[in-house]
């Protein structure tokens, strides 16, 4: 059953939103947390807020809204995880773990591990740019920052990645 928005347009149902966005958002959330369950929890929190909260979303903008919520919640989770890791022995996370099946750490793992060492905003910009393929404008809207900041975070993030990977290669 569709509910009507203020503009009279039909708001998409849970089934429609789930079909359109859920899977891709879980993949996005997984960049921030250690396991699939946590990633799903982040995404479900966003869905619950969207569908149960008193938000007035412009029809058609549910996707960007959910993505922003997921990124914000993911960053928050990442921050908490970093706090925990600063005080506890590191446990191998999803991003850091080697590929399942016993394969040794690959170039991908090294890249993702390096990405995880970046400041969270730089990492978010790079994920949204190189995984989600968002424009600078969309990244700026998702993270709530200026377009210029997107450019500078991306530039600094890539430079830092190169530096980290370079350090690892040098003996």
């Amino acid at each position, binding site marked *: 059953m569709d509910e009507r928005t203020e503009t009279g347009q039909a708001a998409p149902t849970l089934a429609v939103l789930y079909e359109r966005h859920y899977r891709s958002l879980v993949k996005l959330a997984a960049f921030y947390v250690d396991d699939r369950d946590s990633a799903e929890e982040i995404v479900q929190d966003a869905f*619950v807020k969207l569908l149960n909260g008193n938000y007035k979303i412009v029809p058609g903008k549910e996707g960007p809204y959910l993505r922003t919520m997921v990124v*914000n919640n993911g960053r928050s989770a990442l921050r908490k995880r*970093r*706090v925990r890791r600063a005080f506890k022995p590191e446990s191998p996370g999803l991003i850091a773990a080697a590929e399942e099946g016993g394969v040794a750490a690959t170039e*991908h793992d090294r890249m993702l591990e390096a*990405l995880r060492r970046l400041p969270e905003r730089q990492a978010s910009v790079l994920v949204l740019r190189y995984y989600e393929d968002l424009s600078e404008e969309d990244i700026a809207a998702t993270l*709530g920052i200026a377009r210029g900041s997107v450019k500078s975070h991306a530039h600094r993030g890539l430079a830092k990645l190169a530096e980290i990977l370079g350090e690892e290669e040098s003996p």
Partner: protein
Amino acid sequence: MTLEDQLRTALQHKANGIEPSADSYVKLSARISAEKPHPIRLVDRARFLAAAAAVVAVLGGIGLYVAGQDEDGAVIAGSPTTVPIDETTTSEPDDATTDNGATAVIEAPDLQGFIAGPVRPTREEAAIAFLDLLGIGYYDVTVVDNRAEVRSSTEDGSAGSVVSALQLARVESQNGYAVAEATSDSVVIDSPVPPQDRTYDILTNNEIPVSGEGTGFEAALGVEVVSAIDGTVLERTGTSAGNFGELAPFDTTVHLYGKGRAWIVVRSSGGADNVTEPFAAVPVSYDAPRHPTIYTVFRHS
């Protein structure tokens, strides 16, 4: 292959390995149904809260009678102006409870050098000393492992929701505990980053950018620099973020002069009086140029 291509490939490779669980739609649908808000009229709400309090008190009494001394709880005394809530209302996360129901306390690791204080012999004392230092009014503090949840007072003087959480850490050199950071769902400080994420130890500039995301009544946030030594407010300013309930970025600048340690505190506002507001805080250590002093010279004629 360029670095950007490598990054793109690595991200895609990682994403390919993640799929939602088979029952995710069922779970999501159930959550949405279960968490759908049911508005309660104010008059009914008061009756409901009174009835709920009575039930909690009765069940708590029974529980204490049956369980004997099962109350080595983490709830500690409330603010001097309010009455602490019943100890039986202590909430524990699932992962802090062992099989036999006893609380499993995890030892706080060392803060490793960065101490903004105050350092106290116990976690509870450290949390309260921190709140007192910052002049934060609160209703009660619940300590579970290394996290202290600060619960607000409400306009009618009862316990409200959790407004902020304090991350506690061990300070081995002083044989005590201290707060490392305060976080909140309503205010997130991105800069300065918390000590454990820093690549620097001491700030050497007078102007310190303070940024992050927050929400507050009429989009207003309060920003303070509080001396970690004696709680003196060194600077007080304001900034704007998202209107009440909506997170949006904030960006402002505070100033540090000379040498010392301080807490940068960002407070949200719910627009109500006598209510503990959500806040976040990060400690900084600084050794910056001193404040330019204006000297008045008197000359004898």
